């Protein structure tokens, strides 16, 4: 009972309802809830948890397997570190973050398609509210309209799936859908894919992300890029594995959307002279890459990319929004040489960006090699070529930013003469510690990726159908 996985949803919800009237203790409740959730994650047995006493397909159930464990662990740890990093901002939005946490956990655990829609709805509304913290209500409105319309598509897709198959259970739904005539299953599959496209930031519906991510603050930046983005990525991975049947039309549509998101996102990131906008377009591009992996049947590469991207982006956004707030602007001219004053943050930022690009010795390298190897095995030779060419673009802009941010050239000269620019306070010691912890986690994973992957795979009945990519070479 005490070790039931349902606590991951019940506890944050209970805390959210209580926090409305216990405003003094809100923040403490959030921290305690996240810590308890971590305990539950390690105590709960894996398997199917029934809700309401009715077994599937009649009742709703939660599926807690290795895949869900990886995603949930990542989300709880990152969210905990982010709310410590952005404590003053997080205090204003505690009930929203608590409900979002319940929704995220529900989204990753649920084994029911309609319940998944409800959970996505909860997370989306929480995201709308959080995005108002950026202070740009028109951007929030734009995001709200896009995400709501896509939510309707997802709901219609769910309705059609239920109408054709008579069940809503996620596990094994693909088998039922695959037995339908193509003409029938095509429309619901398209609707489900478009229903997720907005949150996955896929072209042509990714325009909201450049605004929301590009104007982010210390709370919204890391939460959107390191918590919401991987969560939706993991849900998409589950959908691709259990629900979505790819016909040639749906498959190619999805692949074209994913590849154009990746290429256009990275090219747009290259053109930016604003640090937050660069990171925004990079997030869009990386989301396209992860979707590509899940679409091409290489989930392990997708999982590794999501984990690498989440950890890297939490550091990148943490540092970038921190220095932007302190120096008043995210443009290259203003931030040039900023790490001359903030070397620890600079080191963490550099580690994260090198891992993002996929330089050897970092987790990103392992993720990208897995991705390229996986796609070679599918026979689509031109896709790895696109990935490698785009990775060069990515490397180019990351290196340019690192050089600019570290460059002590003129500013260094001035600073050494104590003239200009003034050093400003970016983070407290506690916040620097959080960034440091994130950097250490990312770096350690990069040092021993194989051990990390083995640990993830150790108790994995439900992951058996996933093929470990690049296994032969690494072991």
């Amino acid at each position, binding site marked *: 009972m005490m070790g039931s996985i349902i606590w991951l949803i019940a506890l944050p919800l209970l805390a959210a309802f209580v926090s409305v009237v216990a405003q003094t203790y809100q923040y403490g409740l959030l921290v305690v809830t996240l810590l308890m959730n971590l305990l539950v994650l390690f105590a709960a047995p894996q398997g199917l948890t*029934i809700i309401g006493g009715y077994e599937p397909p009649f009742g*709703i159930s939660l599926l807690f397997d290795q895949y869900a464990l990886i995603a949930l662990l990542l989300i709880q740890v990152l969210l905990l570190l982010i709310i410590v990093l952005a404590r003053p901002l997080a205090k204003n*939005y505690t009930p929203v973050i608590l409900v979002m946490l319940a929704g995220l956990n*529900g989204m990753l655990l649920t084994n029911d398609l*309609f319940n998944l829609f*409800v*959970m996505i709805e909860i997370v989306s509304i*929480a995201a709308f509210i959080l995005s108002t913290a950026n202070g740009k209500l028109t951007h929030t409105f734009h995001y709200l309209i896009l995400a709501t319309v896509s939510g309707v598509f997802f709901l219609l897709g769910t309705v059609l799936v239920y109408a054709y198959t*008579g069940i809503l259970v996620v596990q094994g739904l693909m088998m039922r859908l695959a037995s339908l005539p193509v003409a029938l299953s095509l*429309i619901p599959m398209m609707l489900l894919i478009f229903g997720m496209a907005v949150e996955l930031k896929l072209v042509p519906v990714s325009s909201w992300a450049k605004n929301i991510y590009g104007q982010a603050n210390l709370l919204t930046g890391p939460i959107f890029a390191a918590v919401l983005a991987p969560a939706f990525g993991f849900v998409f991975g589950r959908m691709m594995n259990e629900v979505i049947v790819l016909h040639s039309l749906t498959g190619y549509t999805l692949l074209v959307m994913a590849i154009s998101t990746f290429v256009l996102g990275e090219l747009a990131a290259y053109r930016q002279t604003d640090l937050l906008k660069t990171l925004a377009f990079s997030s869009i591009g990386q989301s396209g890459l992860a979707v590509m992996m899940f679409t091409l049947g290489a989930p392990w590469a997708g999982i590794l990319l999501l984990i690498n991207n989440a950890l890297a982006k939490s550091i990148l956004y943490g540092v970038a929004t921190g220095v932007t707030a302190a120096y008043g602007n995210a443009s290259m001219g203003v931030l040039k040489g900023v790490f001359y004053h903030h070397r620890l943050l600079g080191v963490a930022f550099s580690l994260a960006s090198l891992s993002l690009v996929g330089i050897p010795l970092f987790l990103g390298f392992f993720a990208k090699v897995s991705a390229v190897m996986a796609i070679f095995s599918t026979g689509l030779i031109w896709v790895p070529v696109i990935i490698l060419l785009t990775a060069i673009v990515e490397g180019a802009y990351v290196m340019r930013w690192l050089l600019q941010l570290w460059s002590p050239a003129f500013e260094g000269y001035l600073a050494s003469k104590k003239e200009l620019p003034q050093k400003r306070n970016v983070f407290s010691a506690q916040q620097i510690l959080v960034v440091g912890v994130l950097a250490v986690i990312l770096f350690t994973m990069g040092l021993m990726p194989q051990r990390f992957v083995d640990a993830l795979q150790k108790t994995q009945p439900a992951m058996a159908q996933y093929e470990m990519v690049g296994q032969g070479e690494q072991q």
Partner: protein
Amino acid sequence: MKKLVSLFLILVLAFFLTTALDQGLDFWHSPSQLDAFRMSNAFVQNDVLGEGGALVFGESKNLESGSANIVTSIVVDYRSFDTLGEITVLFLSALGVGLLMGSGVRTTLRSGFILKTAAKMVAPLMLLTGIYIFTHGHLTPGGGFPGGSMMATAFLLHYFGSDTVKSNLKPLKWIESTAGALYILLGLAGLFVAGSFLQNFLPTGTLGHLVSAGIIPLVYVLVGLKVGSEVSGIVADFSKTEVVS
């Protein structure tokens, strides 16, 4: 041109959806004539666990769900977890309105004599009807959401009919918070007593009686109070003039 393209896209989507829905949904047959293997049949027959038996109003006892209203059986028993999700959606929306508008300045309306007098007489009746609707959710059409909304409408009418609305909304917050927390605790009680979250652990009584259907009436009372206080809170927040830069 842009509008024409949009119109074309909408028409294409509408065509596909109507054809898809027409093939997928059976509008023309009664539930009993539908495919026997559809899971909705088991919901309609109140027979998911396969313990079976005829459904006779006022006679059948100890059914698995026990609600005379099939929709309520599905919403608050078979798929109660979704309902918990939906009240969370409303909770979040109220929070969002509160965060955006809560800091605004309250506007005062000037209402006429007729509205003032009528509001005093009608609002309590509406409140009573709202309470009736959510306490009878397991017997008649209605339930927590419509009942709660009706209570909030009574609040709105009261607001229109009085020059001064108390700015202290603390009690509403307390009701909202307590009802939400009690719903979760009821679910957890199911986990500890019966074995799974939100599972019914009370006797379901006789079909059609007010005291029947296990925890369903309790859940609907909580949902009704929560929805009522939340929507009232939204009404109160919207009565403020927004101050946005």
